[in-house]
């Protein structure tokens, strides 16, 4: 398993580091920009916005340090960088089948469960690298910008953990989709589709009463970075859902992939 893990990590290392540095830079810049805003002005601006616009930041109080920094954790750029990491890594098994890598590896005395297990672990490690590099940007912002000083570093770490868990779930769902796919593109398409549906459902549930009961179906519903930054903790229900989805989807991906045919 370690051999496959090493190979998988090595081939995606450059992409992972680039995404991590990009995320760190973005979170730092968002933090930096807080110093230039007038809190009262931004509060009145946000209150004047229609709910459909405020829903993009999950109704967070952008005037507060936690709400402002939390909005960076749910910004489309942040979501896109992490979704790219999770979906690309989650689709690896389908790509390997498509390009004959799985055939080459599994014609050696290598258990299928070890192969797919290594790819899932590599996905988690890649996500962890991007999350940690991203968090460094947020930590630097909190540590160096006076106006953000009220946000504890521990809260930033817990928020980063919630973000990691959210995208572990999305990556695991992509891995499950990959276990049914013959091509990497199809798996990536399914993973991206699920991520977009989650985003849209969470957004609609906030602004449309009819859609509200369906909100919890979306993984995004269980990810509220501004709240986590403010309270310093992840609600138990969010823990359970985010970890549960990642574990169940990973388990199913392991099961299905270990039984599938791996010829290109």
């Amino acid at each position, binding site marked *: 398993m370690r*051999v*496959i893990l*090493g*190979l998988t990590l*090595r*081939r*995606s290392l450059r992409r992972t580091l680039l995404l991590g540095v990009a995320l760190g830079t973005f979170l730092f810049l968002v933090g930096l920009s807080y110093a230039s805003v007038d809190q009262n002005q931004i509060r009145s601006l946000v209150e004047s916005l229609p709910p459909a616009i405020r829903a993009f930041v999950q109704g967070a109080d952008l005037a507060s340090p936690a709400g402002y920094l939390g909005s960076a954790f749910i910004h489309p750029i942040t979501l896109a960088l992490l979704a790219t990491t999770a979906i690309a890594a989650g689709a690896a098994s389908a790509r*390997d089948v498509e*390009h*004959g*890598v*799985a*055939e*080459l*590896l*599994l*014609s*050696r*005395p*290598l*258990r299928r469960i070890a192969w797919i297990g290594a790819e899932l672990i590599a996905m988690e490690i890649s996500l962890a690298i991007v999350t940690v590099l991203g968090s460094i940007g947020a930590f630097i912002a909190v540590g160096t910008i006076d106006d953000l000083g009220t946000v504890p570093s521990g809260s930033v770490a817990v928020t980063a953990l919630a973000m990691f868990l959210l995208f572990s779930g999305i990556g695991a769902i992509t891995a499950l989709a990959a276990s049914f796919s013959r091509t990497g593109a199809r798996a990536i398409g399914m993973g991206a589709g699920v991520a977009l549906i989650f985003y849209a459902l969470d957004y609609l549930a906030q602004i449309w009463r009819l859609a509200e009961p369906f909100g919890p179906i979306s993984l995004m519903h269980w990810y509220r970075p501004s709240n986590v930054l403010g309270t310093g903790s992840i609600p138990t229900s969010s823990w359970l859902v985010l970890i549960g989805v990642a574990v169940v989807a990973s388990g199913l991906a392991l099961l299905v992939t270990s039984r599938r*045919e*791996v*010829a*290109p």
Partner: protein
Amino acid sequence: MPTLSGVNSTAAIHAQGLGKSYGSDVMALEDIDLEIAHGERIGFLGPNGAGKTTFIRLALGILSPTTGSVAINGHDLATDRMAALTDAGYVPGDLGLIRGVSGRRMLHALARLHPRPPVLRDHLLSALDLDEHTLGKRIRDYSTGMRQKLGLVAALQHDPAVIILDEPTSGLDPVMQARLLEVLEERARAGRTVFFSSHVLGEVDELCDRVAMVRDGRLLLVRDVAELRRARVRTVEVLFDGDVDPATYRVDGIADLRVDGHVHHFTLAGDPGLLLTRLGALSPRDVTIQAARLEDVFRALYLGDAD
């Protein structure tokens, strides 16, 4: 259905009733019985889509059979896949190397997946002209031939008892093709089993003891190469000084006779000894017997069976 007698469960490769279908109407391979002895060199022939690659993938557990079973060195792929693959070395037809890593890293990684050490690596790298500089490059920068050579080294480096190659010479230049055949000949002399599919009948002719031919997912025949050679139809052209009646040299096996002035053209099946004796008595000015090729037998068998 050609079946070999004396089925031995510890044969190098042993397929019994092996079949693979996709859905209810696509039969990729049907009821294959094939036994390959240790140390044998066997060529697996057939046109595109005949089922060669499907058979190989079933033999390595990449695909699961719909019917029957297959074993390597007595280890059934369905129940003892790890032991079976420990004894095998395989180069796929569509070689899927990881393009973002160096050749050296790929080679090391594939070696580490085997319990046996890569005892032949240096010898193979030298035989196939893969130097340190090339190994240091990323695989995405390799030519098709370089990738194929790397795949061959990766498959053979741990000196597998059963070598399974799916069109191994594709992408190699003629010099490297010859080197590869030398390497395979050497492994066969060391007692290893060599099983390879090919479109190039010349290399099968050069290397193999036996050939197995498949078409439309069925095994057409399994036969010794020597036996096929004996059965080959030769093309003969004889130039006489004057008019000669073909009846004066006619022997069994002559067909398609055509007389064009003093030149007689015909085909001959079987031993040419008696014909040469009779022609000698007629003092021809020139005799050309075209070396029969395995291709001719191959075509004749396919066309004959199709008819």
